[in-house]
């Protein structure tokens, strides 16, 4: 093998690098490396002239590999690899030495910083000596998408993708699509009826020729990678044939089992056979297997007897279906922070203390009270209602550190809805401060304060408890410095938004990361806000962060457009930097098989074998292998060894 001709291009990044690193010296030191044929420094290597000079230098000096010492490879690796290709050499012979994020930005001493930059650069030069030219792997794209979660985010994404002519599978865990938005009464700041806005979209998605709806279904397993995922979906039995069901309600009249209605957040009860809402889609009853006396005509069978349409079938069984899709949108939504974590707010045990969603159901025309606000304990109209904001939010010491973003707005809305229903009532709002950034939001809050005479008290509630048929709320008004005691008929807690239970599970199934608060992590907080870290998996809605409906819909649209862009390609090129087994060293212990997060390795004839279509080149296998029998291409043991040696020299 003839000696490499490497070019080293040192970037100043303005003063970002040059202020802490003597770039001229880095270039000079690199020139002393035996394989380096050309060095150059430039103030902004990523600028147009900078890039051109790289291309020209490769051509002029007959370079066969390139090291650019600049910022993180996350930013400009692609830029310079493209340049290498433009100059006629293989793009995988170009590597980045990160002397900005990993050196100049984190150090102040120029002499030491320069030393480190030299070591980083030298290690990459040595690594590049062993880089192999490689071609990207082309993988075919499955032109179908799957959306997990049938709330407003999922529905919007499904419609947008479907409208682009791409087949979509919308998977929803519950018996109806609609999600949290379907539970809301009116929406801020326009106070239009939530169900009225959402139900046309639900109908549209149901009728859409490109959308396949799978309700009462759960994603169990996902394998494959961007462009070709294989998804196992469990279809839970509803025991009712949606095509035959006429929604006549006769079954619920005879069903003897009464359980709390989760769709009404426990404010009312439902039967074992039920329909979540009148607007439910699919418009069909569902038989709750856990609540039912036993799906057995001998034990009960009343619903089946009374069903004239013959829609009820006790013999339905769970089904697992496998679907091939090219992209996945995760829109699994939020739950409210558990009241049990808040003993000072009654811990969920004090009567007439509701959470925000329960209050939505109380206000909703489709709710248990047909929109009449009355308190659950004695069905009286509450005359004093205390709304408490930031319950569980903005409390890094004990609860959630983050702001749940929508509570200021929906509390203001709750106060207005309450005053509309009970004009003579008094509404109190405890707040820390009001965050009403958004179109028309501040005006909405102002109207709540001024037009509706809602008393806003700046301070927190220390305790609440039941006393004399009322809820005594002890708090502070920090503006007057006075302690406040209110005997309230009802208290509404604006609990923090947390990622839904389903979000936590699906993150594990899809192996996508979550942030410190448990929400799904985006690939880049600013530039890739709807992508997950795993290629081909996109995020939408409150599963990614607390957000309101307009933001959710916007994000769903953005995720959809990403999916459409991805699936409009016929093949995808995958990085060829994947694992490779050295069969002579492999003992077949199978540790790499267990360690591989992508299920890309299997044992065959006592040796590990890598599935090239699934391997992402993460290197977990290489780190686990005790025998150095598995390497990632272009990041081999030898290269790492040389890099360590270069650093220690």
């Amino acid at each position, binding site marked *: 093998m003839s000696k490499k001709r490497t070019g080293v291009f040192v970037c100043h990044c303005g003063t970002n690098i040059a202020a802490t690193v003597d770039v001229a010296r880095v270039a000079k030191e690199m020139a002393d490396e035996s394989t380096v044929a050309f060095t150059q420094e430039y103030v902004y290597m990523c600028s147009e002239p900078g890039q051109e000079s790289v291309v020209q230098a490769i051509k002029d000096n007959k370079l066969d590999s390139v090291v650019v010492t600049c910022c993180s490879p996350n930013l400009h690796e692609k830029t310079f690899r493209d340049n290498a290709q433009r100059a006629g050499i293989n793009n995988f012979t170009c590597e980045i030495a990160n002397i900005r994020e990993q050196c100049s930005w984190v150090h102040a001493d120029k002499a030491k910083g320069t030393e480190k930059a030299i070591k980083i650069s030298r290690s990459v030069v040595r690594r590049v000596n062993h880089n192999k030219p490689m071609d990207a792997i082309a993988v075919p794209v499955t032109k179908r998408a799957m959306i997990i979660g049938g709330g407003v985010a999922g529905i919007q994404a499904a419609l947008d993708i479907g409208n682009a002519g791409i087949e979509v599978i919308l998977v929803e865990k519950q018996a109806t699509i609609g999600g949290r938005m379907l539970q809301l009464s009116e929406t801020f700041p326009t106070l239009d009826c939530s169900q009225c806005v959402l139900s046309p979209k639900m109908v549209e998605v149901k009728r859409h020729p490109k959308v396949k709806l799978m309700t009462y279904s759960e994603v169990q397993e996902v394998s494959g990678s961007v462009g070709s995922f294989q998804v196992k979906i469990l279809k839970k039995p509803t025991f009712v044939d949606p095509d035959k069901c006429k929604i006549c309600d006769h079954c619920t009249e005879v069903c003897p089992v009464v359980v709390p209605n989760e769709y009404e957040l426990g404010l009312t009860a439902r039967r074992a056979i039920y329909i979540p809402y009148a607007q439910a889609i699919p418009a069909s009853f569902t038989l709750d297997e856990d609540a039912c006396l036993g799906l057995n005509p001998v034990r009960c069978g009343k619903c089946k007897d009374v069903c004239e349409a013959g829609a009820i079938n006790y013999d339905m069984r769970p089904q697992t279906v496998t679907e091939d899709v090219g992209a996945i949108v995760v829109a699994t939504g939020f739950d409210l922070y558990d009241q049990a974590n808040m003993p000072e707010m009654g811990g969920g045990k004090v009567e007439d203390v509701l959470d925000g969603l329960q209050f939505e159901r109380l206000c909703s025309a489709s709710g248990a009270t047909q929109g009449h606000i009355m308190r659950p304990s004695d069905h009286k109209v509450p005359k004093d209602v205390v709304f408490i904001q930031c319950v569980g939010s903005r409390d890094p010491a004990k609860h959630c550190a983050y702001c749940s973003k929508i509570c200021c707005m929906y509390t203001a809305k709750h106060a207005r809805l309450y005053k509309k229903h009970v004009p003579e009532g008094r509404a109190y709002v405890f707040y820390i401060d009001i965050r009403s950034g958004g179109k028309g939001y501040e005006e909405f809050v102002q109207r709540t304060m001024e037009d509706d005479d809602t008393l806003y008290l700046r301070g927190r509630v220390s305790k609440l408890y039941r006393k004399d048929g009322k809820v005594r709320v002890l708090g502070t008004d920090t503006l007057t410095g006075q302690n406040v005691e209110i005997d309230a008929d009802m208290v509404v807690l604006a609990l923090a938004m947390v990622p839904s239970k389903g979000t936590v599970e699906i993150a594990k199934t899809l192996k996508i990361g979550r942030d410190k608060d448990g929400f799904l992590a985006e690939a880049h907080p600013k530039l890739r806000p709807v992508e997950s870290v795993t290629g081909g998996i996109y995020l939408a809605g409150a599963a990614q962060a607390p957000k309101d409906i307009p933001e959710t819909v916007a994000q769903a649209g953005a995720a959809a457009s990403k999916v459409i862009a991805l699936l409009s390609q016929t093949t995808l090129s995958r990085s060829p930097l994947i694992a490779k087994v050295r069969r002579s060293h492999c003992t*077949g212990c199978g540790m790499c098989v267990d360690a591989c997060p992508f299920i890309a390795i299997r044992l065959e004839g006592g040796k590990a074998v890598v599935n090239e279509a699934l391997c992402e080149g993460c290197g977990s296998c290489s780190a686990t292998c005790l025998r150095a029998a598995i390497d990632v291409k272009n990041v081999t043991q030898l290269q790492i060894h040389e890099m360590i040696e270069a650093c220690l020299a």
Partner: protein
Amino acid sequence: MINLQDIRDTARDMLAKGEVRTVIGYRRGTRGMLAEPAFITDPAQADDLVWNPTCFHNLSLYLVEDRKFLAHLRQNPGAPIGIVAKGCDARSIVVLMQEHYFKREDVYIIGVSCEGTGVVDERKLAPHLNGFQASDAVFDGDDFVFTTAQGEKRLPAREVMADRCLECRIPFPKEHNLVFGEDKTGRQLAEPFAALKRFEAQEGGDRWNFWSHHFDRCIRCFACRSVCPMCYCDECVVDSITFPVTSETSAEEKANRIRWIERSATRSENITYLMTRAMHLAGRCTDCGECERACPVNVPIRLLNNKMEREAREKFGFEPGASIGGPSLVASFLDNDPGDFIR
């Protein structure tokens, strides 16, 4: 108490019926009281088998050797191998099966419980024998009885037992086809990791001096590696001399073989060797203590392995050799794995 005749009868019967092709056990050695590994293939030889306090060898090593030998001959195993296994040995066998080295049906484990005792540490025994060599050693309840030229010498087992046996938490082969002796799991002869705790109680400087001393003395004879059933790799990553060249080895691999360690037995290279070995045994070492016993210059190798074992146990709730099916320590990731060491 284990009746030795039971072990012999079992071995004889199984060999006679062809249920096993060999029984790996212990027989009387040629030097004094010491037992040595025995490979019994003829039922008539079954009476050679012994079981006494000098049966320290971890015989699972020979299962590895057998597998390598068969691979070399390109033969299938055929009938299983019978093996006499103590608690720690049986755990080693489990780890080997966990790593797919052989299948469960390839081994017939004749378990022997260490009951209230364990194996003897010759270095601890020597001062008790007034310079005489013991010609025989037997278990007797919680005592060992040694025969020397001066007559019989009865010693409480805990005074002359190997540290690893004193600290052993499970002196019983949980994985077995057949087992002799009582399960005395939970006996508390010494605090687990007692030696490690004593060591860690020292000042940082003293600890470094301690290890510098031992790392200087290591002659890199690789006895610890040879005696270890877990060190079964054909090529050891710390070796730069035994590079296996097979028909699959490419020219480039030959040219680019990596020398992580130089051959010289100097402190820095010895540190790299012993540390690498400790890391590679993390979650795999079952503390059979053979490495330390085999060391000709008395490097306290167990301390290194114990440290890794305790980390695995305390941080990840992992017990090497607890079950065949589970994933290995370094290959498994759980959401609740501690991450506080990453800064």
